[in-house]
């Protein structure tokens, strides 16, 4: 690891990112522009999250990286290895043992605690972007708290589908002020954004924005009185660990239409199986995982 500065980035860059993170913490939900750097991975692979993680890491940290809840997918494995090589930090798959967790599109099922930092990889940080493509206009809309358009979008969902069909990247209003894109997490995870004891940081590399939720901050999912927000998930229990309240992935198992539902959070599922929970298609854990 001595071939790199600690955590890859140079000190000048880390200072710039750190200043942006602090302003983001001071203005919850506001997108702070920052001078995003080229990283040794393509845009869309978490360059924003990686830069935020690099600016936060200390040698004593224990890093967990998840991609859609899984610790063992390509994106998670490559980012975890990147920081093992460039920062020499310890890594873990256990949510409770991690001090910094970089995530792509999930919040772990295990509740986070004080002292942990959750870093989100964000593709499009602007919740209004698909409604208004001009940055000059969306900036003005945030300035004036003019969020009518996003309610129109949710209303059109109801008019077309009979319910709010937005199921991920579901917008939240932070501390009654800024409407924020929580990154493409399933709306099932939205309630965990609010009043979380951990620090939540959001990094969008290509779009050059950093934003944050300090601990114990309010984040209200937008809805209507007659169509309240529902944190939905597949109406099944996990087929491996029988968890009924965790977010599930649907997996097609053959070409006859068979399918199974499994926890998207691999660490959560694994630890439940190790504790003896057995789902419909599971078998008792043997410890050879």
């Amino acid at each position, binding site marked *: 690891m001595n071939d790199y500065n600690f955590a890859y980035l140079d000190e*000048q860059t880390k*200072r710039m990112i750190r200043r942006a993170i*602090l302003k983001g913490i*001071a*203005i*919850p939900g506001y997108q702070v522009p920052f001078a995003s750097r080229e990283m040794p991975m393509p845009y869309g692979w978490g360059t924003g999250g990686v830069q935020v993680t690099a600016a936060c890491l200390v040698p004593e940290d224990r890093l967990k990286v998840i991609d859609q809840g899984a610790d063992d997918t390509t994106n998670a494995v490559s980012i975890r290895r990147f920081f093992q090589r460039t920062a020499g930090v310890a890594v873990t798959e256990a949510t409770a043992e991690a001090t910094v967790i970089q995530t792509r599109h999930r919040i772990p099922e295990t509740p986070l605690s004080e*002292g942990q930092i959750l870093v989100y990889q964000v593709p499009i940080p602007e919740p209004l972007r698909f409604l208004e493509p001009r940055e000059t206009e969306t900036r003005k809309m945030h300035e004036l708290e003019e969020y009518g358009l996003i309610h129109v979008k949710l209303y059109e969902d109801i008019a077309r589908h009979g319910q709010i069909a937005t199921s991920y990247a579901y917008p939240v209003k932070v501390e009654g002020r800024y409407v924020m894109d929580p990154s493409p997490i399933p709306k099932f995870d939205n309630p965990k954004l609010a009043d979380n004891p951990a620090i939540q940081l959001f990094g969008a590399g290509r779009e050059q924005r950093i934003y944050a*939720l*300090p601990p114990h901050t309010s984040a209200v999912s937008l809805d209507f009185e007659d169509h309240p927000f529902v944190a939905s998930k597949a109406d099944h229990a996990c087929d491996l660990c029988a968890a009924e309240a965790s977010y599930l992935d649907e997996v097609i198992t053959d070409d006859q239409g068979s399918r199974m539902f499994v926890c998207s959070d691999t660490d959560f599922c694994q630890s439940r199986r190790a504790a003896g929970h057995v789902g419909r298609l599971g078998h008792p854990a043997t410890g050879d995982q």
Partner: protein
Amino acid sequence: MTPEALSGGFRDASIQSARAFRAALEAMARPGTIWQVEGAAPPAPMSVASGVLILTLCDGTTPLHLGASMDLPMIRDWITFHTGAPLVAAEAARFALGHWQDLMPVNRFAIGTPDYPDRSATLIVEMPDLSTAGPQLSGPGIKGNASLSFPEVAAFRANRRHFPQGFDTYLTCDTRLAGLPRSTIVEDV
């Protein structure tokens, strides 16, 4: 420039600034908590905590204002050598260092613009004493109750009224620091 100005920086910049930033981040994210930092040895009367914050956050791109009690040749030299931050008037500053009375009136400092509220100053206020006894705080980062010793309540209340614009503050004393983001609401004593 005096030779003393050349010493007192981080020995291992990347590691020490990383640890210092984590303390600064936790402090700003949890108003009412006090954090210990180390690694800088700035000239008196600057505190270790203020020195650590300046080494961690300031560089040639961040104009810095020195309050009257800090505007000494030794301190100017130390900051210039270690960070390269241009020393400027209060109105142009992204960071400011001083005792509270030096920084008054605080409405001179940048509070950002309505569309870019992040373009605001961060004040580093040297405190004779720093404790969790003082006015009640509420707002983001605070669960239940928190409190902090304050230089002055009225200025921070006025700052909160500008939200989301406003300046952010670090209170420092010796090797300890506390953060006070603009989002914090200072209650009655």
